[in-house]
């Protein structure tokens, strides 16, 4: 993650408190599709 992305990630990471919500936000910022995100969230892959 470069400086810019780190910056936007840091921003959302800072305004969101819940660790699970942070997890979702991180995956979205990584441009993962909903299906990929579900796979990661549910199976932990």
């Amino acid at each position, binding site marked *: 993650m470069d400086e810019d992305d780190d*910056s936007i990630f840091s*921003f959302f990471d800072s*305004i969101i408190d819940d660790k699970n*919500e942070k997890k*979702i936000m991180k995956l*979205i*910022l990584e*441009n993962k599709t*909903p299906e990929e995100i579900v796979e990661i969230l549910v199976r932990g892959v």
Partner: protein
Amino acid sequence: MIVSDYKIERDEKDEIKIFRPFEEIKNIDNIVKIEGPNSIGKSTLLHILAYGCYGLEQKTLPESLQDKLNNLFDSKRNKITYKIVITNQDKSLKLTLGKSDPKAHPTLIEEINGKKNALSVETFQRKYNLIYDIPNDPIQRLKQVSYEIKESQSTYGSNVEELKQCIGNLIADIIKNKSPEEREKIKQGILSLEKENEKLQKVNIELNEKHDALEKAYALAQYNRAAEELHKFEAIRKELGGQKKAVFKKTTKLIEYRQTLKTMVDETDVRFSSLLPILKVLFKDDADAKSEHSKLKSIDLNEILYEFKIDKKLLPILRFFEDKLFILSEKDKGKKDIEYDFYVKLADFLNYYKNSNIKIPGAKTSIFEILRELNSKIEMEKEKNIYITNLNTAKTLVNQLITDVSEIDGLVAKMSSDEIKDLGSGIDESAMVSAEKNVAIWEKEYKKSSVFYEEKGKPDEEIIAKLSKTILRKYMSYTPNDMHKEIETIESKIASNNAQIGANEIRIREDRNEINDLESKKTPKYYDKYDKLNKWHDISRGLETKLRHTFQGYISELTVPRKVKKQFTPEQEKYYENVYKYIGNRINYILYQDEELKVIKIDLLNKVITVKKKGKEKEKELTFDDISTGQSQSIYFRNKLNVPKSDKRIIIALFDEMAMMDKRSMQPILEKIRSLYKEKRLLIGILVKFNEKINVEGLGK
């Protein structure tokens, strides 16, 4: 490479002026700094590029630039045609912006690896990020970052919603699919319904058996009863009918008797009436006879017709006068005038010859004269003769009346016999009506039973007798009516059971279809992760709410101009602190009094920039006014170019009026542009700056 050409025909009222681009800017690098004096077409090139890239459709385009584009493309004043071809570094992408006729709509053709595609506004905005700006009041316009944040929150909020929907669909699939336990439950339900139906069918078989037996028993009982009752009432009817006939017969005889009696009484009364005056004359000087006569006169013979008996006084009085008349006749016997007879007979004889001239020998007078003499003699003897006549008549009448009385008495005696006496007293009309009615009722019942027999055959009494010991035992004491009620109850039970069986069958069919359907489908994805899906569904819903509502509300507050400071909630304060840090992070550093300072945060509400000197821990606060215009512009443009990598759109950056920036302020922008171009995230980057001399400098080297 950017190859551009345009023609502007400007109507200045006194003349039409034609503007064309300077040769220096017709072919330029993709990333380029254009410097030059006014009116060489630097800004016009940017305007046309922005216009061609649907800049007027972009919400974030600064208002001042919107005005400039609108003025330039005001068709009343300017007739513009243009063609600009932009090619990327490896020539895999080509954009052709064109307007061949001043009245035509602009066209934007994208060509990727030789494949052309006309881009609509929406498609262009989805694929390209047009950043066109001039640094007017740049620090103040940092507030625009809040719009970007708002947009980001909205975009990511939509992404989270998509995720939520994706999880929701997976959950729905699992719910539809039903768990093995639920499937088993449905299967058990089917078995249970099948068992219930089996039971109900069995019950119905028994009920049908009972119904048939009871129906036969009822029919037999009803038939027997009908037959018995019919027989009974027919007998009653017959008997009453017989009585009726007898009464009719008797009535006929009585009528005959009455007629005879009347005739007899009438005849007697004639004689009686004739006798009374004669007796009165004959016994006018006899006191006893007169007394008896008076009694006789008081007797009304017609009473016999009503009383059916003769006045007891009548016969003795008649006997009395019979005796009296006998005495009288004995007394006057021989007194009868032979001469009178002779005269009468002679007169009758002579009367025949009265008109003849025959002369009776020895007589001196004619027959006529003799007749006259004779009639005179007869008249003289007549009175004497009336008495005798009366006496004889009276005798005859009395004798006759005595006979009459005897005959009447005999007839009355007959009429008073037992046979006649019972007339009219032996028949009960209401009993007759009742009998008729009952016969009709039982005839109907009897017919009904007969119909049943015709349809189903006459029930076998032996079989009924056997059934009465088993299935019909309970009902043998029942009346036919009770049996009939019981039959109706059983029929109702059978119908109700059949309805239940039908409903169960429908349910079984539906459940079976559902099970077959479920078993033919694949097990849904994450079937065993149902709980986890639900958990993440809830979390994504919470996050979506924050991004699309809570944080959107917070960020909107930043853009509202306020004279009085507003009190925010701790959550909001925390949020703004992070926004300020984020903006500071994006700017990264600023030049202040020839010193590079690390930007910690930029407080948009209080217009304070928190910075830190290199190697120092202590933070420093600067107000927006402390920052030079050139630095402000630098900060602003750097912020504009700091597009998150997650934004995959190709950047087209056009920055105008950068004259206030010195080399140091410009440097970070140039570096950013080169970096983005190298990463192929930027298609073109044009920086326009005033200078007395024309200088077009490619930035790629």
